[in-house]
């Protein structure tokens, strides 16, 4: 390889690099710098962080986001994995069922929010179904106990099929010979899953776990459209809190500090998950 001519290199790399620096790295840096200056102060300090962390609303938002993450990620991945195992077969019309599970993934989250917002109305079809089954109608999005679960439903309807496709592709890459080998050894279904499928799927699962966790930290449209964080702050996920701080209340300093907190948490979670999913046998193999 010869050293590239600067003009040619600039033509190929320049535009994209400029876009990424100006539109991704610069605003992230700007948020970091802004977060260090309290309003009307030219001294670097942690005042903005002290302020948001002592703010009850922000504390509750962190709590809600943590609870939401701990529920939604395992739930979606477990469902996606079960669906992938179910649909990893060659029966008639399987292609159609796969496509139907994937289709909601094409629906923008704002559209999913609007549709389910109507579906979960007090006089909507979900309550109609519950009543047919002899269950009392529920308040869903207007109940502090059910609103977060409603958001989880809205997000999972588009998410599960999406992550399922990755896991399905991962399952199909597992060599058939491995399954035959353990069958000869007399392994049962659970043992096959535990000692063949799961280890072979580790890389795909890592990718899905990390990407899904990041995506779920950023959920915003359903909250902003349907609940604005309510009722009683029960759905005030971190993105909605940042939006409320920065855009609705115009408190750019607090929004910048909250943004830095979010980005830091995202990067930390990504790192931890990669560590955790690294198996000892990866080194041996």
């Amino acid at each position, binding site marked *: *390889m*010869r*050293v*590239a*001519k600067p003009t040619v*290199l600039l*033509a*190929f*790399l320049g*535009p994209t*690099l*400029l*876009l*990424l*620096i100006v539109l*991704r*790295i*610069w*605003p*992230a840096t*700007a948020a970091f710098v802004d977060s260090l200056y309290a309003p009307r102060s030219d001294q670097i300090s942690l005042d903005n962080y002290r302020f948001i962390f002592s703010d009850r609303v922000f504390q509750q938002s962190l709590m809600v986001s943590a609870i939401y993450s701990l529920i939604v990620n395992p739930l979606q991945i477990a469902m996606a994995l079960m669906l992938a195992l179910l*649909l990893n*077969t*060659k*029966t008639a019309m*399987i292609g*159609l069922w*796969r496509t*139907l599970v*994937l*289709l*909601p*993934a*094409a*629906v*923008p989250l*704002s*559209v999913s929010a*609007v549709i389910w917002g*109507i579906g979960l109305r007090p*006089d*909507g*079809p979900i309550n*109609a179904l519950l009543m*047919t089954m002899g269950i009392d109608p529920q308040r869903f999005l207007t109940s502090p106990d059910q609103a977060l679960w409603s958001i989880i439903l809205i997000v999972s309807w588009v998410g*599960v099929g999406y992550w399922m*496709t*990755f896991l399905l*592709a991962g399952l199909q890459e597992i060599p*058939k010979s491995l399954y035959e080998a353990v069958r000869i050894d007399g392994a049962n279904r659970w043992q*096959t899953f535990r000692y063949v499928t799961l280890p072979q799927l580790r*890389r*795909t699962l*890592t990718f899905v776990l990390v*990407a899904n966790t990041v995506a779920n930290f*950023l959920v*915003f449209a359903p909250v*902003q459209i349907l609940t604005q964080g309510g009722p009683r702050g029960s759905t005030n996920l971190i*993105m909605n809190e940042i939006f409320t701080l920065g*855009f609705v209340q115009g408190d750019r300093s607090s929004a910048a500090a909250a943004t830095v907190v979010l980005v830091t948490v995202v990067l930390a979670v990504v790192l931890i998950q990669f560590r955790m999913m690294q198996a000892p046998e990866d080194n041996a193999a």
Partner: protein
Amino acid sequence: MTTRRFSFRPLAAAACGLLFFLPIWWVAVGALRPREDIFRYLSPLSWRTLWPTDTTIANIVMLFQSDFTRALFNSVFVTVVAVAFGLILCAMAGFALAVMRFRGREFVFFLIVVSFLIPFDAIALPLFGLMLDAGLQNTYIGLILPGIGNGLAVFLYRQFFLGIPKELREAGVVDGMSTFGIFWRIYLPLSRPAHITAGLILFLFQWQAYLWPLLIAPDTKYKVAAVAIAQFTDNVEGTQYNLIFTAAFFIALIPMIIITYFQKYFTSSVASMGGKG
């Protein structure tokens, strides 16, 4: 695998497929029925709940006579432009990182990776402040620019180009091709799977975006469909659910067609990316 022994499996697969599809079907039915029928067949539930009896295209006609037409056009326009420019620019950057030798290449690659590890929505608000100062609110440029430079697409192209044998490139040099010629006539034609995956990433980013267009393009003239549907105004008779259903159907239809069509590439290429990444 041990599939054939269990006969309930096709049934379970069908049930899951239909369950996921049900809300889409309900929206499509709602788009085709008169406004007063939307909540009419709910108690008790009957076959009419999920089957339109008095089908009408009045909703569609009404929807496309409203501001929504403009919003849908905006979505299509910004998505087409972002995907077209994004593909070519990200491919060029990926090419530079894969085949060119220059000082600081590792650092540039590091910047690319950092740029896609920082989630865009997380920095949307600070970026909005910068764009506001630059006078880019309510412009197509403001809507499109963040969708063009995509670190993940660059990364994907780089990985794919690294797999193309360097003998092909050397043959091109012997034939007297320019760097751009090698890129355009050798690398791009060989990279169909990368184009499709990168194209899908860029497409979904732009089409599904909500927070960024909400901030940067609130004006009716530039509002995109994903934002417009959340802001349907009530008229004297209350919320126009019939129009919301119709709009939801059209916003979802375009990505549904694209994802279904490219389903095979979508799964295989992104899965291998997950493995390598």
